[in-house]
């Protein structure tokens, strides 16, 4: 089935956050600090204020203080991170380079942009720290782990501590990934509109309409129902819109001050500095094994970068704890706080970082043992979760190995690196495994039958690109036995039925069952309504009720009819809203999606250029609702993995604490010519426990494991092991 919003997207009719036409619209442009740490000693806004068309210049000196604002870094009640997001224009303190110090509001974009250049600031500079390597010694255990030893970020131990050190056959390697930036094609943008002094509407680039509503309602001391967040179309996000950022607050403040709707879109430079990134992370793996290829111990340590005002924690070491059967296992996760903006989850968040180290180390150990890397993984395969000692809810990873190996031509792979070549190009093959929790939260969905025989479903969930709207339409159509054209699924509005933030591959797992149950409840309701007015339906079973063009029918009774118009009139509406929650199975089973990626690379012997010539991505993600959109998502994750492996690298000049990569000419992401033929394989076996649909989630496992597959293929092609991403030609020649 094609995407339900395809026509909107190919005709330019889809409206994104900065594209809503509002009367009397004004434009906001941010001014950023030019130092990295210190205080603002003065800020001269006079010239900017007098520039044509300028409505206001707002700084910490004159910004209205939202009543619910907690000072930066001082709100330990924040659930996901310790600390508190940067509160814009609250004080004179500079915490990172390009931190917003003013917003200029004018009646046109050009005038706002010009006037923003006229704001002049003086600073008292302090010495800053932006280099992870230089600050590793100051790394600390995250506060959440200190408070709760059972936190996933706490040190983990099974068997002996650091047992690999006494192993006969062992390796010890360090791995580094640089800061990577989400860079969705849509720049971060918001249109803020105070419809009344206590009613706020936001057209926002967010992955969670309800989370954004909650944040800003709290910030402004408003009841949640007074804040409406609309995010019908989100131009990619990849985690970048999982947090409320300074520019959103700035636009809301600006709209308050000028009493007009304000549109604010970041520049590509600003996308580096103030809206999160995958953090620069150092890792070390120690591993020991028996000569016949059984892992005896793994120690995996990690230090990730965070900001000085928020402790950003991710599951870098999660895959190591459960993927392979190692009797001795130690993990240590630490953070280093630097004078930078806060990181935020980026596709396949910590797991993609961790998998680069773990899956590279697996390849290194297989090489040491002179065993095929797939065979080595099979010898350490886990039939139950070794971390929690519970069975898997489902696991078809072996099937993925076999399907992928066959499709990529793994039998051509030589154990000895550099053995295959085609003219000046070395050819190599590598694999990398990925996993991500099959998370399911609770969600509501509403459904109603309209007099014209169509069914309208609504959910506050966003669709940042995976095709949520399409999958939900299909689930509803299947449940109701209606053609998808008869279903309208509306999303991306905080006024709709409650749904979680789109992220963590959890949306089909979570919202899918709510849609399914809402449709079943709707059918129940229709049957009951029909039963009161039509005796043929009185004792009918709901599965016998079917939809025709204008009326309900009953199987086994060809004359039974209840017209939609009558039912709707009779009941004064047919709307049902249900809430769907996970069952307790999560306590009995370990629930994960699994993937394996196989890469074929060609490395030029003289220039060190790496071309990924083939990628095969195989997933055990439970039931696949829509092969077309799911396949697209898998391919997209693989392309993201190519970027991670070969090009993405945000570089700070530590002397100034400022990014030198400021645009897409300096920060490279894969383009069309970097994308090889990508083949996708889904096991497509339902998981019996996550939900009734049998789904497990795709978004993260599409990327997790791709980068090490490429790095391992480069080693197989050249004999060069690159442990610091990206694998640029200088590291190979």
């Amino acid at each position, binding site marked *: 089935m*094609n*995407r339900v919003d*395809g*026509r909107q*997207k*190919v*005709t*330019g*009719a889809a*409206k*994104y956050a*900065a*594209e809503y*036409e509002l009367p009397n619209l004004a434009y906001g442009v941010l001014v*950023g600090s*030019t130092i990295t740490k210190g205080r603002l000693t003065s800020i001269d*806004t006079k*010239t900017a204020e*007098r520039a*044509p*068309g300028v*409505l*206001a210049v*707002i700084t910490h000196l*004159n910004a*209205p203080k939202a009543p619910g604002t907690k000072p930066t870094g001082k709100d330990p009640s924040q659930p996901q991170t310790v600390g508190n997001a940067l509160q814009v224009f609250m004080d004179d303190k500079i915490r990172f380079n390009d931190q917003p110090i003013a917003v200029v509001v004018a009646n*046109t*974009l050009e005038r706002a942009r*010009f006037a*923003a*250049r006229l*704001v002049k600031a003086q600073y008292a500079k302090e010495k800053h720290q932006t280099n992870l390597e230089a600050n590793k010694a100051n790394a600390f255990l995250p506060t959440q782990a200190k408070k709760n030893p059972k936190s996933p970020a706490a040190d983990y131990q099974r068997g002996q501590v650091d047992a690999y050190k006494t192993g006969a056959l062992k390796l010890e390697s360090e791995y580094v990934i640089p800061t990577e930036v989400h*860079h*969705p*094609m*849509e*720049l971060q943008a918001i249109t803020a509109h105070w419809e009344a002094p206590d009613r706020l509407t936001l057209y926002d680039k967010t992955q969670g309409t309800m989370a954004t509503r909650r944040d800003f309602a709290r910030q402004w001391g408003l009841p949640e129902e007074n804040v409406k967040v609309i995010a019908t179309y*989100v*131009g*990619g996000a*990849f985690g970048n819109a999982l947090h409320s950022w300074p520019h959103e607050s700035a636009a809301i403040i600006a709209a308050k001050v000028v*009493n007009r709707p304000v549109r604010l*879109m970041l*520049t*590509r430079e600003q996308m580096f500095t103030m809206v999160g990134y995958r953090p620069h992370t150092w890792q070390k793996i120690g591993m020991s094994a028996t000569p016949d290829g059984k892992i005896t111990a793994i120690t995996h340590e990690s230090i990730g970068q965070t900001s000085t005002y928020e402790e950003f924690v991710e599951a870098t070491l999660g895959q190591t704890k459960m993927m392979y059967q190692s009797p001795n296992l130690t993990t240590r996760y630490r953070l280093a706080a630097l004078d930078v903006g806060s990181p935020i989850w980026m596709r396949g968040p910590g797991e993609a970082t961790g998998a680069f180290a773990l899956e590279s180390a697996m390849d290194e150990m297989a090489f040491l043992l002179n065993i095929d890397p797939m065979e080595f993984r099979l010898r350490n395969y886990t039939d139950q979760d070794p971390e929690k000692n519970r069975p898997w809810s489902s696991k078809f990873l072996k099937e993925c190995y076999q399907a992928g190996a066959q499709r990529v031509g793994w039998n051509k792979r030589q154990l000895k690196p550099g053995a295959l070549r085609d003219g000046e190009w070395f050819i190599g093959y590598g694999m990398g495994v990925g996993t991500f929790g099959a998370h399911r939260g609770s969600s509501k969905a509403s459904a109603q039958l309209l007099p014209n025989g169509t069914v309208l479903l609504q959910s506050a969930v966003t669709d*940042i690109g995976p095709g949520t709207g399409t999958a939900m339409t299909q689930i509803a159509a299947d449940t109701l036995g209606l053609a998808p054209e008869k279903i309208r699924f509306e999303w991306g509005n905080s006024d709709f039925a409650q749904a979680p933030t789109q992220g963590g591959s959890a949306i089909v797992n979570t919202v899918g069952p709510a849609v399914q149950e809402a449709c079943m409840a709707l059918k129940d309701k229709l049957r009951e309504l029909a039963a009161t007015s039509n005796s043929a339906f009185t004792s009918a079973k709901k599965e016998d009720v079917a939809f025709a063009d204008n009326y309900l029918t009953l199987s086994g009774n060809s004359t039974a009819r209840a017209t939609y118009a009558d039912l709707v009139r009779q009941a004064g509406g047919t709307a049902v809203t249900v809430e769907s929650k996970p069952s307790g199975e999560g306590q009995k089973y370990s629930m994960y999606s699994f993937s394996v990626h196989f890469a074929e690379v060609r490395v030029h012997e003289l220039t060190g250029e790496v071309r990924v010539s083939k990628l095969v991505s195989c997933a055990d993600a439970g039931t696949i609702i829509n092969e*077309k*959109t799911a*396949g*697209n*998502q898998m*391919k*997209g994750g693989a*392309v*993201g993995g190519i970027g991670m492996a070969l090009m993405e690298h945000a570089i700070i000049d530590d002397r100034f604490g400022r990014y030198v990569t400021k*645009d*897409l000419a300096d920060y490279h992401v894969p*383009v*069309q010519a970097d*994308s090889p033929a990508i083949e996708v394989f889904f096991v497509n076996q339902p998981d019996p426990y996550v939900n009734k649909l049998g789904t497990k989630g795709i978004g993260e496992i599409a990327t997790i494991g791709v980068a090490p597959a490429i790095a391992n293929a480069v080693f197989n092609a050249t004999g060069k092991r690159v442990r610091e991403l990206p694998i640029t030609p200088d590291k190979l020649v």
Partner: protein
Amino acid sequence: MATNHEPDVPANHNENRRTFLKQSSLLTALALVPGPVVSAAEAKLDERVAEAIEQIPLSLKVNGKKLKLKVEPRTTLLDLLRENLNLTGTKKGCDYGQCGACTVHVDGQRVNSCLSFAVMHEGQEITTIEGLADGDKLHPMQEAFVKHDGFQCGYCTPGQIMSAVACVREGHAGSEGEIREYMSGNICRCGAYTNIVAAIQDVKSGGQKV
């Protein structure tokens, strides 16, 4: 970035040229802003001066429609389309000609609309994504993008489609490799590249007029 390159103008440049007053409805806002209050009479005069200096007449054709406009010389073609004409199908992804999201056709050639000023297009014919379909009937390239799922979030899509149409018209859609090369100016961060190639190949081999 804003304060990185201070404009090389005297500090009192704007004061001397003109002073400026906000509309009366904005006086509340103004009260929050430090700075001298200026008289209404001066301001209205000043705004008229600004209008005269900042607004340049421009005639062009957009999606077949002749337009007579007054635009600021510093307004890019992209911002003219998005902010002044409400043709938001053309997307802003970088403002530096690096991503291709703003691709439109100018006199039949694909260009990054962020890289030129609107006033440079006097008398020219602009086609945007909104002008590609024939009424309700989608252009074959639009159809093919839907059929092959050549997008995910949809943000780069208008630029991809405008580029893809030009790619076929230019005769650069001869092979998968050639398409990949000639479509590399249009970044898709969702990574729908393979499906985009499939869509273009479908149109190319379908023989329909593009």
